[in-house]
């Protein structure tokens, strides 16, 4: 009980401190979650505390992970009428984006002959972290590896995404928003929002639709791909 109070309060306080820092120096590199993960990991390693103890102490926080996925229904509902004319397009884009990301990650894993557990952790990296964790868990992957990779991909997308899209000749803010929402989840969506309000609306819709597509399609695709190579 004391462990739980301590684990949760340390995590929460650290998160809010990092959020304040992030607001002062607005930069995706200073991602609060990334900083918290690095700092807490370092503390656990230095003080020789087992990860299992920390995980058990923070179960109340992890409990909300699944609740947060359910809560995504609200923004989807709120944005539906604004994006309805583009719904098919956004679904098609998400499907193509998610499938190609999973396929490429799978090919890279084969190329580097990674273990099945590691491959399973790299299949659902372009969606919002709770979905990644749920998919990774269902494929028996390593959630810790998946979580850090997802956040790093979001940070990279937030920093370089818009320039890459401009280089590739994508000019409409709506298209940039869809791409950032599909490929770089919440951190990309935040970058899209700063870029243009329309880009932000399309990015958040694309992010949630991708979450739904990933959770239902990626496990099937991974099983199919594994069937092909074995």
């Amino acid at each position, binding site marked *: 009980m004391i462990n739980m109070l301590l684990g949760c309060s340390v995590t929460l306080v650290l998160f809010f401190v990092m959020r304040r820092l992030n607001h002062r120096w607005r930069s995706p590199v200073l991602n609060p979650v990334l900083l918290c993960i690095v700092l807490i990991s370092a503390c656990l390693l230095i003080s020789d505390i087992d990860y299992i103890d920390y995980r058990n102490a923070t179960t109340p926080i992890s409990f909300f992970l699944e609740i947060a996925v359910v809560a995504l229904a*609200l923004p989807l509902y709120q944005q539906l009428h604004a994006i309805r004319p583009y719904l098919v397009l956004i679904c098609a884009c998400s499907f193509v984006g998610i499938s190609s*990301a999973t396929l490429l990650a799978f090919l*890279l894993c084969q190329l580097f002959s990674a273990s099945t557990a590691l491959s399973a952790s790299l299949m659902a990296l372009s969606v919002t972290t709770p979905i990644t964790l749920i998919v990774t868990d269902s494929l028996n992957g390593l959630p810790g590896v998946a979580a850090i990779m997802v956040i790093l991909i979001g940070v990279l997308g937030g920093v370089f995404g818009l320039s890459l899209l401009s280089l590739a000749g994508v000019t*409409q803010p709506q298209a940039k928003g869809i791409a950032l929402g599909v490929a770089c989840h919440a951190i990309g969506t935040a970058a899209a929002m700063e870029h243009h309000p329309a880009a932000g609306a399309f990015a958040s819709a694309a992010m949630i639709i991708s979450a*739904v597509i990933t959770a239902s399609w990626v496990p099937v695709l991974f099983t199919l791909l594994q069937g092909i190579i074995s």
Partner: protein
Amino acid sequence: MMIALRFIASLAILIGCLWAARLATAAFALSLPAPLLGLVLLFILLQIGTVKSEYLLPSCGPILKYMAVFFIPAGVGLISYLDTLGENAWLLVSVLILVPALGLLLTGKLASKGRYYD
């Protein structure tokens, strides 16, 4: 006091959807993740008007705004796999660069085929 009650009531809707989804996935042995089914269920309830978005705001607002904090415990799990990370550094770096780049380019190109009205 009212605020606390509203928060609890709206959280109860979310938990209710999640539990209903858990029951359904267990009963029908669905391979769909339960939280996703919960999302779909809540979305349908919102669409048909059983649940109003005002009911959900007190809990959904802060949960979505601070969602990132919920990933921290899972993320710290990487300390159990430091060896794996070190051994596969090149794979991880290539995934980190190539996967989002391909995703952004393909979706961006495809999405720019659309006609958008401002």
